[in-house]
């Protein structure tokens, strides 16, 4: 036998971890993302100032980077570094939570359509086509025009609800392909119920595409949120997200360059590392 007993466990999770750690580029990505997540997690401990405090709206407004304010201050005299740190917390949370909402809907919808098949599948897929034909940003703009001044939780829900269409397609396709696999027939032959087959046998086989979609999905939501906040319809003031920090300095980009450079840098780094990780995960699963 060519395979030794000492081989490590090849669980989907173990596979993902080893796949990521194999490539130097993804090791760097894990490190950068880890730092950003830690910054967000411990924002209150790290941030030098209160992100919403406007200590002196006349003397301290729009200062360029200095020792006291490494990222400068905004037109309301708030410390940009503190706002970027808190922004990490909010932007990442929105990204992750909205993606959780998307995953829940996308997996449930796709799995049901694929497993049910027939008329149910056909109807569900046409409904999905209708949603897919409207650009996500337009959907969101429509919602946000109807309900201006959304709270952050509501924003998360709407971002999540507009992000599951593509994933549910993938899940549906996989379930469709797998439901006639011999191990499914074998499980039926051993007395498993249809529900058990879907939950215990089919969904675990979808972990890889779901994890990849989730990683890329978080990056998407972060960019979307920034876009919406930039348009002034995302995260409401005085909360700080990367998008609305940039927005605060948008009308004077040329002079207040620090206001878009630093949050922008963080955002680009986050999105890039997430995409690198998504790629690495895809590779790891495909190599199997």
């Amino acid at each position, binding site marked *: *036998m060519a*395979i030794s*007993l000492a*081989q490590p*466990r*090849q*669980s*989907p999770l173990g596979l993902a971890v080893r796949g990521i750690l194999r490539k130097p580029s993804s090791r760097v990505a894990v490190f950068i993302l880890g730092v950003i997540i830690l910054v967000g997690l411990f924002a209150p401990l790290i941030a030098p100032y209160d992100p919403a405090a406007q200590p002196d709206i006349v003397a301290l407004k729009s200062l360029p980077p200095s020792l006291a304010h490494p990222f400068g201050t905004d037109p309301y005299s708030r410390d940009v570094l503190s706002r970027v740190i808190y922004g990490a917390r909010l932007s990442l949370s929105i990204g992750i939570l909205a993606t959780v909402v998307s995953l829940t809907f996308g997996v449930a919808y796709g799995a049901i359509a694929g497993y049910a098949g027939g008329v149910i599948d056909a109807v569900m897929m046409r409904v999905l086509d209708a949603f897919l034909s409207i650009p996500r940003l337009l959907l969101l703009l429509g919602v946000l025009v109807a309900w201006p001044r959304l709270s952050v939780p509501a924003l998360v829900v709407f971002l999540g609800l507009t992000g599951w269409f593509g994933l549910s397609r993938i899940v549906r396709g996989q379930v469709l392909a797998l439901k*006639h*696999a*011999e*191990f499914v*027939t*074998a*499980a*039926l*032959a*051993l*007395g*498993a*119920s249809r529900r*058990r087959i879907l939950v*215990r*046998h089919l969904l*675990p*086989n979808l*972990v890889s595409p779901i994890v990849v979609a989730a990683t890329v999905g978080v990056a998407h939501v972060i960019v979307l949120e920034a876009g919406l906040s930039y348009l002034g319809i995302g995260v409401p003031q005085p909360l700080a997200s990367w998008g609305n920090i940039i927005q605060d300095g948008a009308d004077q980009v040329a002079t207040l360059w620090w206001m878009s450079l630093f949050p922008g840098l963080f955002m680009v780094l986050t999105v890039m590392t997430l995409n690198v990780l998504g790629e690495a995960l895809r590779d790891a699963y495909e190599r199997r």
Partner: protein
Amino acid sequence: MTEPLLSVRDLRTWFYTEAGIARSVDGVSFDVGAGETVGIVGESGCGKSVTALSILRLIQPPGRIEPGSVIEFEGRDIVTLDDHAMRDIRGNRISMIFQEPMSALNPVFTVGDQVAEVARVHGDMSRGDAWKRAVEMLAMTGIPDADVRARQYPHQLSGGMRQRVLIAMALMMKPALVIADEPTTALDVTIQAQILELLVDLQKKIGTSILMITHDLGVIAETTSRVIVMYAGEIVEETSVDELFARPHHPYTEGLIGSMPHIGHDKDRLNVIPGTVPAPTDWPHGCRFRDRCPYSWDLCAREHPPLYEIGSRAHVSRCHLAIEPERRNHPHPPIVVQEGVAAA
């Protein structure tokens, strides 16, 4: 034989396809006694696998078991059983060993998990007890270091090991009947013998009946006591193994045995049965084998042969030669119908 364990009567499993109704299994009747090993042999498309799946009621639409079919098992008719009772039987009283051990195992779970799951589905076993039982079962099927192997994934095992895992799953609940659908086809020849030996061995230990489905007469000879030969959705011959090899009656059986390679026979070519199984949407009228048969005559086109008794009730054959045996002395080249042209 006393009351049989499984009694199949006039089983018809038809598929309603766009090309027409495929009568894949078309009026099959047979019994399997307790502790007995019965073989079903035939080439691809003869309906043997559909028969197996019908017994577990795993036929998916557009296929269905036609009303009037009866599959009596332990005194209950499987055809009319409700879904819940059916799930209780599957894997518990009747289980199945599949052909392709790689694809019949779920790639993302350890093999131990998958064996243990059978106990979790059917018994009120705790996770720990089920796992312990699974490791025992794996050890019983001859897997060395079963406790280590149990924590591995299917792709980490060899083909023979995987088949042992499937056997462990099938025997976990000590079922009354195990259906083995080509259990050795996907394996290396050297492993095949081991697996067959294991099956026979475990059968003795557990006392289960086996329905051995195969296209390989070698497997039949090694494991079974009684053989059913299927062709074009029906049984064409049924008898004991010894009788089958010594005195095959149906020309199809004769052809099957004649087409087995023999060591020592110095021949350049194997004997083959000319032609292929006709399409199940369009079985020929009369005898379904007549287009490939070296003995067929006008009666064969006119009348669908019944199962004739050959010498005793234990040997039956669906061939008109039973009433005109002298025709066996005058074979003629069969009229092979060209592919794509419907039999007239």
